[in-house]
């Protein structure tokens, strides 16, 4: 297993480098250094000032080849190498607008993000599995049919609709929750109930459909028939036997999601004003702050690789037949 983990970790190197490479090229196309310089200097900037700023930032060097430097330096003193060498060592630098260390901002933003995403994840998982067990239990009844209709509807309507409808109904009309805002510590709860409820409900559609399919596949197997023949109760069969055996696909879906809880939620945070990492990323996109974007993409790639690895390892925990070599 150690060898397997080492191998997998090595696999992540080209993956992460590749992701960073593509995003770097893309960012450069969308937010060209010249444009960033103009944005920074404002409406009265002249050509000379723009050129000066670009030179002082090293933005006038080549992307991958710096003809001016000469020798080996023409390959190493380029924008890409400068960018990557800092990124790989987690030296993210400071934000463009307010010169705050990006590392600190990420650590600070993680707290509100986690207070939002962890309850969504846990509640979504528990409610999703319970409901899908129920639906599987009532398989081929009107309840099951109704659940299919509701689930498909949930899956096909955009979360924006839920957000706006939730804000309109619960916050504006029933006046139960604040429409927007955040508070630290214990007071955060009031602001989080609505977005959490919306995200859980929105997530249920897909989850219930997925878990139900997985569960039903298991229900059709021989051991279930044997258990029924033995006279075990339906509830016991579902919770004790079927659920355990359906864990592999469930784990694939959930363990992979865990690392991304740290990244926050772009839409929910933006619409409800929760000052987490999703919100920070949106702001970076709006301001063309490529350093923040690059840091988030890099962390995202690392977390994705980590999540994949965790998923594989978790298989061995729930299914003794799986061996990692």
């Amino acid at each position, binding site marked *: 297993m150690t060898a397997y983990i080492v191998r997998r970790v090595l696999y992540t190197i080209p993956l992460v480098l590749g992701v960073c490479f593509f995003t770097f090229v893309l960012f450069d196309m969308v937010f060209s250094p010249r444009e960033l310089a103009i944005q920074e200097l404002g409406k009265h900037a002249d050509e000379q000032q723009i050129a000066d700023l670009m030179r002082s930032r090293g933005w006038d060097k080549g992307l991958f080849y710096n003809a001016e430097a000469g020798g080996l330096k023409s390959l190493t003193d380029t924008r890409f190498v400068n960018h990557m060498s800092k990124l790989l060592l987690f030296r993210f630098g400071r934000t463009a607008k307010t010169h705050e260390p990006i590392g600190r901002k990420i650590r600070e933003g993680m707290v509100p993000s986690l207070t939002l995403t962890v309850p969504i994840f846990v509640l979504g998982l528990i409610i999703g599995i319970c409901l899908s067990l129920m639906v599987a239990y009532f398989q081929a009844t009107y309840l099951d049919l109704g659940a299919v209709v509701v689930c498909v509807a949930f899956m096909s309507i955009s979360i924006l609709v839920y957000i706006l409808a939730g804000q309109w109904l619960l916050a504006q009309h029933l006046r139960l929750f*604040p429409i927007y805002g955040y508070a630290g510590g214990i007071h955060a709860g009031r602001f989080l109930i609505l977005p959490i409820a919306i995200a859980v409900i929105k997530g249920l559609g897909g989850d219930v459909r997925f878990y139900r399919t997985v569960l039903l596949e298991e229900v059709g197997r021989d051991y279930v028939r044997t258990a029924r023949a033995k006279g075990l109760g339906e509830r016991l069969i579902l919770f004790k036997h079927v659920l355990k055996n359906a864990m592999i696909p469930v784990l694939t879906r959930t363990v992979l999601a865990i690392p991304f809880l740290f990244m926050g939620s772009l839409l929910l945070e933006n619409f*409800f004003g929760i000052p987490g990492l999703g919100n920070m990323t949106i702001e970076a996109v709006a301001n063309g702050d490529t350093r923040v974007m690059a840091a988030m993409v890099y962390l995202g790639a690392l977390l994705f690789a980590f999540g994949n690895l965790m998923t594989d390892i978790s298989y061995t925990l729930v299914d003794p037949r799986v061996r990692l070599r």
Partner: protein
Amino acid sequence: MRRGASRFARAFWFGLLPLGLLLVGCSNDPYPPPGDEKVMYGVLGEDPHGLDPVQAGDTLSHGIISQMYESLFEYHYLERPYALKPCLAESMPEVSADGLVYTIRIKRGVHFQDDACFVATGGKGRELTAGDFVYAIKRLADFANKPRGWWLLQGKVVGLDEFNEESVETAAAGGKMDYDQPVAGLSAPDRYTLQIRLKERYPQLKYALQMSYTAAVPREAVEYYGEDFVNRPVGTGPFRLKEWRKRWKLVLERNPTHRDDFYPDRGEPGDREAGLLDAAGSKLPLVDEVYYTIVSEAQPAWLLFKQGYRDASGISKDNFNQAITPAKELSDEFEAKGIRLTKFPEMVVYYVAFNMKNPVVGTNKKLRQAMSLAYDTEWRIEHFANGRAVSAQGPIPPGMFGYDPELKNPYKQFDPEKARQKLAEAGYPGGIGPDGERLEITYDIGSAVPAARQAALVFAGDMEAIGIKVDIQTNTWAEFLRKNKDGRLQVFGVGWILDYPDPENFLQLLYGPNKAPGPNGSNYDNPEFNRLFERMKAMDDTPERLVIIRKMVDIVVEDAPWIPGTHSVSYTLHHQWVKNVKPHAITGGNLKYRDVDMQLCKRLRRQWNRPNYGAVGVFLAVTACAALLLGALRRGSAVRSAQP
């Protein structure tokens, strides 16, 4: 099976009860419980771009910075036309006879706010001196600070341009400027006297000394906080920064060591009746705290205003019909809430510019006049601005010295018939040129936002109506600037927002030597206009100046290097608990004059935001019924599956 069903129902009821209890304790108030302080609540669309005065280039950042930092002069809050009065200066500047030497006395006994950066005094704010302004102006000239206001003093102060050039070199080499190095035109002959020596007459200097760019900045703070200075404002202003959490909130609080600063006792006629002088003589600021929430989405920001959780709001296009009736008055719903509407002409001009260097439009005056006649301003005002704009006749917006309400630009009266006639005179009868081809014009826009595109399409439609074909080019702002610099634009739409209330700020957009890449994007260069401009810019607002300005406007109207579009009118809503609201064309440190009736605010908020328990009850009842029905259904299916 019956037992199972009842257990299911019991679980359901046990779940419902706490849910109901939870909802009883709910409220939609987004703020921490208030104390007895007077608090103003506002919304910012995004975080300020840092709080360094030399970077206060955008309205939003400047609006915050100017509450904490003060400059030598400030605008009268109530008096019109806009006039400056001393702020940190003791009096208005003494100007030498040749207009080149400005001597400004500084108020004594003004202190910076207490801050940890004042190490020598153990955190107590130091007294303000003239040296602080010398330092601040040098900072404005230092390229390393990315100053957005350097253009104000560029080429004006003796020795300052050399300082600026050196700072560019230093920044490129990775070094730091030495602020002890003297600049010939900037000096502090004594502790409370500032002297500025100019290279040429520049009466607009007083406006530059009002802006946050030249606000007093303590050197201690810049050096103590380094890169973090943009987040740690230390000024002399009425407020100081209490808390700034990015993308969340920005809270200002009363600066307890703010100088003696009092509410004005003079205003325009009508101000007394409007209650604007009730606070005359009160010590400023009038409120204890200003609480801004950062709300980037328009919809929640609007709802927060309707709920009473922010004091003031603009009106977006989407919500316009909710708040304003077709007669441009407040709707009944808003009237009933006691909300007040302020309409206010902004000092802005939006226009379509012709590149005068372009061989087609630049040399053909009649063609430009024809296109101007075909431009339907009223339609645009109604459909793009909900009526919130006035048709521009020339470059100077209403409210500005030199604006002529009587002016009727003969080429700005929408008249397609006359336009066709002019077009024929221009050599393009029916839009067909001498070569037998249809006239084709390129119209460039510097943004891909839908509004810019729509405006361009309407322009194309207007021109099509008289037979001119328009090719619309969408650019990024950077591309647009580059095309402008290279003279590759033909016809394009832009706007200008004033920097200071002097007509020079608008007329310079047409001054020959300012041509691209300068602000004169149309490359208009009329020797007579240039000559008048040079005379006018160094004059005070005298009747003689007015005559010259009128003459200049007439030249521009006849030459038609622009199609003057619109001057926008801003509509602002205020709740009734906000007091001393008077719109001002120049955003600045005006929050200190505002007051709130906290009792009224709290009462109305409670009244408007009582949770709607009735509807909640109905909702829960419906859910309960559905659950019971489901239980019954389940029993039915259980019975069915029990049958062999």
